[in-house]
C-alpha cells in the first residue's frame, strides 16, 4: 500500500514540469485569451468588456478578415492536395527497387530540412521578375514570365508553387509506409493474377492510407498557420493578395495593438482547425487500419 502511494507521488514528481507548464502556459493563457476575445484591450489600459463585438466586427465589417480567410483557404485547398499527391507519387517511384535509393531520398528530403527566413530570401531571388532564375529560364524558351510575387494575380500561386519544394517531408513517411507492407500480401495478389496496377490498387494504396491520412491532417493544420513566408517574401502584398490569416492576426496584435480583436481571431483559427480536423476524421472511411483485424502485437 505504501509502495503504491509512494509510486503515485513519485509519478506526479516526474510530471511536475509538465503540470506547471500546462497550468502556466496553457490553461491560464487559454482562459485569459477567452476573456480578451470579448474585450477591448491594448495592453496599456486594462481590458474593457465589449461582449461579442470583436466577433461581430470580424464577420460584419472587416473585409480584410474575410479576405485573409479566403486566401488561407485557397492556399490550403491548393497546396495540401498537391504536396500529398506529388510526395506520394515520388515515394511510389522510389519504392520500385530503384538503384541508389538513399541518394535519391537525400535529394528529395533535403529541401524539407531547411525552412524559415533563409529559404524565403531564396524564393524572393529565384522568382525575381528580372534577374530570377525562373524567368531567365523561361526567356530561354521564349516566354516572358509573370512578375510572380510582385503581381497581385500571381503572388498566391507563386507561394503555392514554392510550398511544393517541401514534398520530401511527406515522401519519406510514405516510403517508410510502403516498405513496411508485408511481402506476403503482394504474393497473394500475384497468385490471384494481379499485375502492377492491382498490386498498387489493392495492396500498396490501402496499406498506406493511414500514412496519407496523417500527412493530410498535419498538412491542413500547418497550412492554416503559414506565417514566415507571407511575412518575409510578400509581407501580405501586393494589394493584400497574400494576407494569410496568421499574418493578419499578427498585425492586429502587434502592429495595431488590438489584443482583444487578435485573441478573438486566434479563437476563430482554433475553431477552423477543429472543424477541418473533424471533417477529415469524419470522412476517413477510406483509411484502412490493419490492426482492426490483425495482431495487436505492436
Amino acid at each position, binding site marked *: 500500500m505504501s509502495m*503504491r502511494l509512494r*509510486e*503515485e507521488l513519485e*509519478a506526479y514528481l*516526474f*510530471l511536475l*514540469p*509538465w*503540470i506547471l*507548464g500546462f497550468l502556466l502556459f*496553457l490553461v*491560464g*493563457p*487559454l482562459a485569459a*485569451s477567452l476573456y*480578451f476575445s470579448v474585450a477591448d484591450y491594448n495592453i496599456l489600459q486594462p481590458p474593457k468588456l465589449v461582449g461579442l463585438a470583436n466577433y461581430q466586427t470580424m464577420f460584419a465589417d472587416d473585409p480584410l478578415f474575410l479576405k485573409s480567410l479566403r486566401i488561407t483557404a485557397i492556399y490550403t485547398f491548393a497546396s495540401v492536395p498537391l504536396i500529398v499527391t506529388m510526395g506520394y507519387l*515520388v515515394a511510389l517511384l522510389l519504392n*520500385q527497387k*530503384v538503384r541508389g535509393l538513399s541518394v535519391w531520398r537525400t*535529394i*528529395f*528530403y*533535403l*529541401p524539407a*530540412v*531547411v*525552412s524559415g*527566413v*533563409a529559404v524565403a*530570401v531564396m*524564393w524572393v*531571388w529565384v522568382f*525575381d521578375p*528580372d*534577374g530570377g*532564375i525562373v524567368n*531567365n*529560364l523561361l526567356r530561354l524558351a521564349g516566354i516572358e514570365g509573370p512578375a510572380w510575387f510582385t503581381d497581385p494575380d500571381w503572388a498566391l500561386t507563386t507561394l503555392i508553387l514554392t510550398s511544393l519544394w517541401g*514534398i520530401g517531408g511527406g515522401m*519519406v*513517411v510514405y516510403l*517508410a*509506409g510502403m516498405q513496411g507492407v*508485408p511481402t*506476403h500480401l503482394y*504474393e497473394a495478389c500475384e497468385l490471384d493474377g494481379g499485375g502492377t496496377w492491382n498490386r498498387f490498387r489493392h495492396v500498396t494504396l490501402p496499406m498506406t492510407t493511414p*500514412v496519407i491520412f496523417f*500527412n493530410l491532417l498535419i498538412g491542413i493544420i500547418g497550412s492554416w*498557420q503559414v*506565417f*514566415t513566408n507571407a*511575412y*518575409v517574401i510578400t509581407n501580405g502584398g501586393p494589394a493584400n493578395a497574400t494576407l494569410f490569416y*496568421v499574418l493578419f492576426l499578427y498585425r492586429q*496584435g502587434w502592429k495595431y495593438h488590438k*489584443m482583444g480583436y*487578435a*485573441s478573438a481571431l*486566434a479563437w476563430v483559427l*482554433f475553431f477552423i482547425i477543429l472543424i477541418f480536423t473533424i471533417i477529415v476524421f469524419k470522412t476517413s472511411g477510406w483509411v484502412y487500419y490493419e490492426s482492426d483485424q490483425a495482431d495487436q502485437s505492436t
Partner: protein
Amino acid sequence: MSTQLQSLPTWRQRRSVHTVITHTLYYLILATVGTMLMVPFLWMVVSSVKAEHEIFSIPTTWIPERIRWENYTHALESFPFFRALLNTLFITVSVIVGRLLSTSLAAYAFARMRFRLRTPLFVLVLSTLMIPYHVTLIPTYILFTKLGWIDTFLPLIVPNWLGLGAFYIFLLRQFFMTIPSEMNDAARIDGCSHFGIFARVILPLSIPALATVTIFTFLEQWNDFLAPIIYLNSPDKHTLAIAIQFYRQSASGAGWGPVRTWAHLMVVSLLTMAPCLLLFFFAQRYFIQGVVISGVKG
C-alpha cells in the same frame, strides 16, 4: 524478413525488356523532379560567389567568371553573423536541454509508472496537440511583458523547460513502451528507484528517440521566426532568422526589388541554412527514423 528473401527470385525472373523501359522512365522522372528541387539551392550557391553584374546577367550563367570568396568576408563584415549565431545557438541548445529533460520525465511516468490519473492526464497531453500556438500567444506575451522578460531569451526558453511540446512526450512515451518491461523489473529487484531506472536503464536505451527529439527541436528553433520577432527587439539579441530579415530590409530600403547586395544576402542565407544541412548529413539515420516513428506509427 525470411519471406522477403524467398520471394526475391520471383521478382528477378519477371524482369524483362518491359521493366527495363519502365525503369528508365522512372529514373528520368526522378532526375527531372530532383533537378527542379536542387536548382534553387545550386543557384544560391553559385550566386553567392558571383559579382553583382553577373548575378543579373541574362541568360543565367552557371559558372562564375571568378569565384569570389571575398563575398563571404564582405557579407560577414556588414552582417552581425557571429552575434546572431551565438544567440541562435544559445536559445536552441537551451530549448533542447529543457525539452529533453521535461518531456522524457513526463513520458516515463506515462509509460512506466502506475498512478490513478495516468489515463486522463495522458488524454489531456494529447488534447493539447489540438491547440494552435496562436491561441495562447497573446496572453503569454502579456504575461512575459508583465514579468519584464521582453527582449530577453527567457520567453523563448522557459516554456520549453516546463514540458511544452506534447508531441514529444507522445513520441518518447511510444518509444519507452517498446523497451521490454523485464528490464524494469530486474532493476526494481536490485533496489533501483524509478528515477534510477529512468536515468540508468530507459534513457541509455532511448538514444535514437532522444536524438530524434533533439533534431526536430533543433530545426524548429533554428528556423523559428514568429516568437523571436515578437519577443526580441534589440539587434544584439537577434537570432539569425530575424537578423537576415533586418539585413534584407536595410539593404534594399523598401524591402523590394533588385538590391545591390544580392550576393551578400545569398551568403548570409546559405550560412544560416548550413548547420541544418550539416546536421542532416551527419544524422540522416535519425532524421528518417524520427519521421518514421512520428509519421507511420503515430
